[in-house]
């Protein structure tokens, strides 16, 4: 009798322990949680490893860089590298150029693609399937092939070396990966309830007014995706601006591209002998400064970035 009690008691205890570690149908146990957290933290570390490295190295001075006992934590926070990197990048001008080349084009692109997606999704446009198929096809063909003819086209209009090519490309919705955004809008506008439009029409609203007052406010998640990603992709793109707008605008990534040359020109051989040569610390400080604006935007708007993709219906229904 006693042994039975004991047995069931220890059995219950075992079950409890088992539940704690392995969990049950409703709740994951400690072990499962540990697994999930472990793998995610490991992968997360791999993801931000370059940032940690950049932060650590860019605060080092020349002495720390060659000191083999210093690997992660600098002996003191030296801002010398940042000072030189800001100078080499010509940071404030570069920032202005970057903003000029990305904010307005991103706005233009999201507006013109909204119009196109609305027209395509809401109205019976002839050859609708063909346009959608062409948009997908254009996405599949690498953008490099259109570079030369576009260059010749802008050149014949005397627009090379001005900021306008990027603006035109965005205004007509042909920017980087614009097909994706067109499809997002198309998807959105072909699934939203048309009865709202019809109600407004009965109330006497014109078609443009319906678009501005009813359709567009509902499409804000799609518009946010389009704007944010256009912005980031235009900001990070160097090929297009370097090809069409040399001299008119030199964005931050472009300046990072010619960092070494600029540095050597600014700090000529005189200072090299005194330990002022270009080193890893200065280069990484420059890289960090280049991505800093984007990182700040991302920290503020990360929810919009991530969640809007989920909500935009990019995965189809």
């Amino acid at each position, binding site marked *: 009798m006693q042994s039975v009690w004991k047995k069931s008691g220890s059995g219950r205890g075992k079950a409890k322990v088992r539940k704690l570690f392995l969990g049950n*149908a409703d709740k*994951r146990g400690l072990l499962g*949680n540990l697994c*999930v957290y472990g*793998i995610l933290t490991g*992968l*997360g570390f791999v*993801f*931000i*490893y*370059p940032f940690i*490295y*950049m932060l650590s190295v860019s605060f080092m001075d020349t002495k720390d860089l060659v000191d083999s006992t210093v690997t992660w934590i600098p002996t003191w926070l030296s801002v010398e590298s940042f000072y030189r990197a800001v100078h080499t990048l010509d940071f404030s001008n570069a920032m202005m150029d970057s903003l000029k080349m990305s904010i307005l084009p991103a706005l233009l692109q999201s507006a*013109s693609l909204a*119009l*196109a997606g609305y*027209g395509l999704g*809401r*109205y*019976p*446009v*002839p050859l609708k399937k063909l346009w959608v198929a*062409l948009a997908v096809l*254009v996405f*599949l*063909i*690498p953008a*490099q*092939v*259109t570079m*030369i*003819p576009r260059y*010749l*086209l802008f050149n014949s209009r005397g627009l090379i070396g001005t900021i306008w090519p990027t603006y*035109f490309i965005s*205004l*007509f*919705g*042909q920017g980087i990966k614009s097909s994706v955004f067109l499809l997002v809008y198309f998807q959105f506008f072909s699934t939203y309830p048309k009865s709202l439009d019809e109600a407004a029409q009965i109330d006497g609203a014109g*078609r443009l007014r319906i678009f501005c007052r009813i359709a567009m406010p509902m499409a804000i998640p799609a518009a946010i995706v389009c704007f944010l990603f256009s912005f*980031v992709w235009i900001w*990070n793109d*160097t*090929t297009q601006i370097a*090809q069409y707008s040399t001299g008119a605008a030199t964005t931050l990534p472009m300046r*990072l*591209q010619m960092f070494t040359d600029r540095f050597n020109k600014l700090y000529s051989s005189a200072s090299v002998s005194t330990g002022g040569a270009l080193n*890893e610390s200065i*280069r*990484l400080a420059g*890289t960090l400064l*280049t991505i800093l604006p*984007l990182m700040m935007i*991302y920290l503020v708007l990360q929810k919009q*970035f*991530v969640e809007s*993709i*989920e909500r935009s219906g990019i*995965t*189809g229904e």
Partner: protein
Amino acid sequence: MAFKKRKSLLTMRRRDALTGLLFFLPWLVGFFTLTAYPLLYSIYISFNQVVIKPGVIMFEEVGWAYYRQALMSDVEYPILLMNSVANVLVSTPMAVVFALLISLLLNNRFRGRAFYRMIFFLPVVIMSGPVMSELMKETSAMTLQIDMFGIVSLLRTTDSAWTGALFMFLNSFVRILWFCGVQTIIFLAALQKIDRSMYEAASIDGATVWESFWRITLPYLKPIILLTTVYTIIEIGTFSDDATNQRIVGSMRDITKPYSYSAALSWIYAALLLILIFIAFLVFNDWKEARWRRDAKRLEKERKRPR
């Protein structure tokens, strides 16, 4: 009366089509002038020699000469091309698999989910060609410096093709992972749409988590895998620090053969990428569902015919 009503309906439909076309017009104009025309024009250029004289640009037809030159007599280009394609071939499956893995983990409910999601998506926002090449160049920012129990240093002393491949993998590991942010979110969005009750039904029938992953999650995700694979191929293949792309841009203003040679180079690369995409399509397309749909359509037609 009935006739009149029908006519007015028709004009209504026409008016709708016209309005739609008006909304769609900016994109259409842009598509023809800035995308379709340049596409065809660059094919044309690649078969012609461009002669630039003051004020005019003339073309002389050369046939496949530039393509032959790129593949046969260019010392550099075929190697760059092979490297780029190999890079895409190796990186794409890894990026997709890691994106799937991360999204499966993130799909669980646990504290700090948003924080992890933020980390995994960060590279998408800050990744640009110059930043990438700065990080890859000379510095060890993109290579993990962790020597697990001395295994890596032990391997480094042995020298074989396998360890070489392993180091290539380790060195580009972070870089490849950085390419899977968007795909992770796409997977995550798709996972959240799978009906929970399917898993419940499976578990009542005695399926383990492992089994329901292979029998429910993966089949459901198949079209999404195709989508992300294609996206990854494009993303990695056309990234601006890729050596082939840099060569294409660099040879644009080649004095002896301006524009044409670069156009030929870009089309060769584009063709290879399209072949890769096509292979991905063959592998991941849901043939069963396509056949099922086709059959359904045929049945529908047959049912309508007798009437």
